[in-house]
């Protein structure tokens, strides 16, 4: 059953008289209880999409087109009140920066319980009981004392656990996790992510994992959406996508990452150039300046994506060569890297 469906979402930034489209044609969907990863580099629009789902876009940002269907209901046309009813008991979010995402002057207990008291009508006592339970679930010991403490008493990893507890507090059906571990050390990152995905699968909560880390995606997601410069360029099951990416960007991305299992001395094959500035006007495919396969068509026509497809790609010149990870290069003879390096 489809829990969340995003269709051709566009988000505009208005500054004075000027409008810039930061996200265009973002489309993906998520079934109940599933985990979806949204991957992309900074500026790809992945976080904005999540915020749009929450209805928490900053004032100068507006969803300009498309639909966000949650349980079939379009969130973009919902009233503020309706959205508030959804936030917490239906959809929750875990943010990137654990150090700043908790209110520094309120106790952990307060921040953990206020949602329950508001949405679930819990008494202070009930809320506290559930809060203790939640803290234990997310692996915080001595929960009773911890409830009375303030965020600055907590380390980054602990705060992120608290954030997860807050997200789970009202038993939502969907959690959007926006780069939840980027600010954390690898060992902590591993703790938090396995905790999050374990709790979600145990409790049947759908999880959208937004990240730039291809390793995390590989470990935690079944299905992957790749975003580039505000658009979805490819969406597929993780295994398929990693083995045989069809979009040159995805392909380049996977070839750029150093891996632990490549043969020593192998070469990285970076994508040339840098992502476009969101304020630039580009025609055609937004990846075309960096694409080695770009044709004239790519310069003029924007490729569209069929997001219902099992392996959806937005490209006029899709690739179909699987990658050889041990060499960190395509299996077949794709010469792009070799010719350029003397």
């Amino acid at each position, binding site marked *: 059953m489809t829990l969340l469906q995003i269709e051709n979402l566009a988000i505009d930034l208005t500054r004075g008289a000027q409008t810039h489209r930061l996200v265009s044609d973002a489309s993906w969907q998520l079934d109940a209880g599933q985990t979806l990863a949204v991957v992309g580099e900074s500026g790809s629009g992945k976080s904005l999409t999540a915020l749009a789902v929450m209805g928490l876009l900053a004032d100068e940002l507006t969803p300009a087109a498309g639909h966000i269907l949650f349980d079939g209901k379009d969130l973009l046309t919902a009233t503020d009140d309706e959205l508030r009813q959804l936030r917490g008991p239906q959809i929750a979010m875990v943010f990137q920066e654990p150090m700043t995402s908790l209110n520094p002057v309120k106790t952990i207990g307060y921040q953990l319980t206020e949602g329950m008291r508001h949405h679930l009508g819990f008494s202070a006592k009930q809320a506290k009981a559930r809060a203790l339970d939640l803290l234990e679930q997310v692996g915080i010991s001595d929960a009773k004392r911890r409830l009375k403490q303030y965020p600055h008493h907590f380390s980054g990893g602990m705060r992120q656990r608290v954030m997860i507890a807050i997200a789970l507090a009202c038993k939502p059906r969907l959690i959007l996790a926006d780069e939840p571990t980027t600010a954390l050390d690898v060992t902590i*990152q591993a703790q938090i992510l396995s905790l999050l995905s374990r709790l979600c699968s145990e409790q049947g909560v759908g999880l959208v994992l937004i990240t730039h880390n291809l390793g995390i995606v590989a470990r935690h997601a079944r299905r992957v959406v790749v975003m580039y410069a505000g658009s979805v360029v490819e969406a597929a099951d993780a295994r398929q996508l990693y083995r045989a990416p069809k979009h040159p960007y995805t392909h380049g991305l996977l070839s750029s990452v150093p891996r632990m299992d490549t043969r020593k001395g192998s070469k990285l*094959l970076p994508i040339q150039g840098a992502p476009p500035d969101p304020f630039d006007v580009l025609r055609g495919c937004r990846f075309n300046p960096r694409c080695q396969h770009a044709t004239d068509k790519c310069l003029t026509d924007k490729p569209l994506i069929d997001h219902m497809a099992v392996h959806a790609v937005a490209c006029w010149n899709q690739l179909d060569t699987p990658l050889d990870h041990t060499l960190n290069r395509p299996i077949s003879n794709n010469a792009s890297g070799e010719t350029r390096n003397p």
Partner: protein
Amino acid sequence: MTQEPLLQIQNLHVRFPVRAGLLQRTVAEVKAVNGVSFVVNKGEAFGIVGESGCGKTTIARAVLRLVDATEGSILYNGDDVTAVKGQQLATFRKKVQAIFQDPFSSLNPRKTTKDIIGEPLRVHRLVNGNDVNNRIKDLLELCELPARFAELYPHEMSGGQRQRVGIARALAMEPEMIVCDEAVSALDVSIQAQIINLLERLRKELSLTYIFIGHDLSVVRHLCNRVAVMYLGRVMETAGADSIFKNPGHPYTSALLDAVPNPDPEDEAGRHIEPLQGEVPSPSNPPQGCVFHTRCPQVMDKCCQSVPPLENINPNHAAACWLNEA
């Protein structure tokens, strides 16, 4: 690859006093680096990995003489540079340069590329006044930037471009060794690969020696010949890059490897991961014995009492763990 030691670090300690009160008395010490020894050979890339607070950046800063060593020595070409001053320090500074983590913060925002690269050339009279602009152009070219970038301010460049300017600035001093402190970790994946390739090329072309500080194991593995793994101010393990990650000799190294997901779903599906529990203790009050014992899945009584020495378990592979004693 030659095997003469260019840099030798012996029993290095760096402690930062925590002062408080009216008289600014030292009330505590942060033991950022706590008795570290290693050798960097000429022409190699030596990697130091570890989580935040493990002391890797402090080592880099001590080598760069940005912080003073509290104890121990840093021998460069056989000379102790921990306390040199004046002309000797100036000579040393010319030989060892740095590339920093943050491409936003590492370039003075008030100066153009030309000024940034030109300043050391002018101040140290590395080239004739008339040749400064040519040299700048050459350095930019070396870092794969066109000459027009000389006129730009940092905010007019992208992260990758800025990092290239930072590299060019370091190269302006014609160093023998470059300390790269998390030099690629702030960059997006696609840009990161470009810079890694550039660093590799420069090392070969200019016969540089690198100390590469990083937290991303795969990047360190990719770039470095030898690697040291640090935890809480101490070296846990050091060895060749291949051998340390293939056959880790310390539970911490294993845990790190476990924590790093491989960008390969099939691979990941086959892995059973038990994440390391707990958090890193405070460096102002490190645990007794092996500093890792509070989180070690294989902890023994002995670990809580005495510090395991860094001993060879193989030629070229040393680890500090009591498990290896057995």
